[in-house]
């Protein structure tokens, strides 16, 4: 440790000042906008926002889809993580790499694939009309299911990564021991695996949930204006109706959610160390 405080500050402050001026200040002003009303301060912006049925629908849909994606990712994630941990060291590395790789690829590319799958001339519709199950193509795009699938594919790797690292810390003999003592696989999961991987589940769950909440591209491409989520609603409010008060309310909701998720993660991390 060096003691020269002034020198240290000179090195650290440019980054802090840059972040403050370009981040905290503009975002702070934007957040304050919903509280300004006829020259004074009030909660009118928030009251008006939640008084609109569409806004309420979008708000609840965003929470619902976020929770659903996180839950599904947890179920698939546990199965996949369990299998990965059971692999030999060599194939484990390869499979783990294949799980992580999609995270490095542009979300636009990752979402676009679903248009090919779910579109009017996509695989699903070709199969359905080919088999004669329906004469006209079904509308699969611009549905909640499409957004759900897109988000799940986008964020599932985060859940698997968190669960794999949690499961690697389970002592080797614990699961066979529970089995020998007569526990069913269900009991093993709920009484042994789940309690021992709780932290990984919370970390993965928060990452997937906040990721789904704040994703823009997936709802924009797969949901369009039929299935609005908070981010796409914000964009529409600003671009179509110049409504900055709604934008400010949505911004507050998103920031509060991802900030609390972040606090939770920090708490878990510090409890561990």
């Amino acid at each position, binding site marked *: 440790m060096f003691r020269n405080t002034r020198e240290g500050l000179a090195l650290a402050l440019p980054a802090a000042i840059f972040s403050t001026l370009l981040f905290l200040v503009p975002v702070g002003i934007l957040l304050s906008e919903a509280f300004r009303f006829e020259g004074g301060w009030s909660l009118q912006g928030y009251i008006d926002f939640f008084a609109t049925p569409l806004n309420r629908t979008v708000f609840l849909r965003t929470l619902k889809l976020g929770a659903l994606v996180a839950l599904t990712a947890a179920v698939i994630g546990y199965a996949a993580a369990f299998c990965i941990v059971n692999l030999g060291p060599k194939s484990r590395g390869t499979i783990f790499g294949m799980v992580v*790789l999609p995270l490095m690829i542009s979300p636009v590319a990752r979402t676009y694939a679903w248009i090919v799958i779910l579109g009017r001339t996509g695989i699903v519709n070709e199969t359905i009309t080919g088999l004669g199950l329906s004469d006209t193509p079904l509308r699969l795009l611009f549905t909640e299911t499409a957004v759900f699938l897109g988000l799940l*594919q986008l964020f599932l790797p985060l859940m698997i990564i968190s669960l794999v690292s949690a499961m690697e810390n389970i002592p080797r003999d614990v699961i066979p021991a529970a089995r020998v003592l007569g526990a069913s696989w269900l009991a093993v999961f709920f009484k042994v695996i789940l309690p021992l991987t709780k932290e990984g589940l919370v970390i993965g769950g928060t990452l997937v949930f906040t990721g789904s909440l*704040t994703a823009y591209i997936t709802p924009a491409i797969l949901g369009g204006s039929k299935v609005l989520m908070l981010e796409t609603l914000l*964009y529409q409010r600003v671009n179509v109706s110049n409504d900055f008060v709604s934008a400010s309310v949505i911004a507050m909701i998103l*920031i509060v959610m991802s900030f609390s998720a972040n606090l939770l993660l920090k708490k878990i991390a510090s409890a561990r160390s």
Partner: protein
Amino acid sequence: MNTSSRLLANWIILGLTLTFLIGPFLIIILAGASDTSYLAFPPEGLTLRWYLKVFTVESFRASFLLSMALAIFGTLAALLLGVPAAYALNRYDLPGAETVRTIVAAPIIVPGIIVGLALLRYLVVPTGVTVTLALFMAHTALVLPYAVRVVSSSMHNLRADMEEAAVLLGCSRFQAFTKVVLPNIRGGVLAAFILGFVTSFNQVPVSLFLSGPGVRTLPIDMLAYMEITFDPSVAALSALLAFMSLAIVFVAERLLGFSRYV
């Protein structure tokens, strides 16, 4: 269950999961090669014309160059700010170090779309700064947390007494930094650059509002193109971008064991 059927179940679950995660890429690669003027899968006839067309679309070329420039220079600027900050946070007993850390990490917590809107409304509009400059600063701010985090963790393992020894042996503090610290954290800085580059290049929401006539990042341009045309060229471009990211990560992993840092 006996061992072999368990092993089989294991691979079936993994196979399904990987199909869901990676299958879509194989689909866009093939969809981009379909010899039709609309998206089709399975592809009807194979052609490379959509892959070639991508390079001739003027707006794709311009937006690709903009995205590249933003990713390269934005990340360099973030490192220029982030490396000294990471160094100071590790080596000095700073008053308010925790505050500095929180401020620098803040951009991760705030969704990009909000940052873009805030910068447009309170920076570009009142001060007349160009959209390109605002984009550059937004991408820098966005990458800064990653730069500080990755460089910090590689500096964490470097003992301070090496520098002290260098100073005792006659180096100036600056020389001690360039001759002792920098060579030792080179891997971390490179990893931070790659992570920053990929993050910035793939970033969409922050650039949504920060685009103007002729100023569009590549993902935004692709979104716009998708709305008017349904030919397979976006699929082809998506496939090419996926290959680009994979190549970068592969080379990085080979050269410096990238995954250690991320």
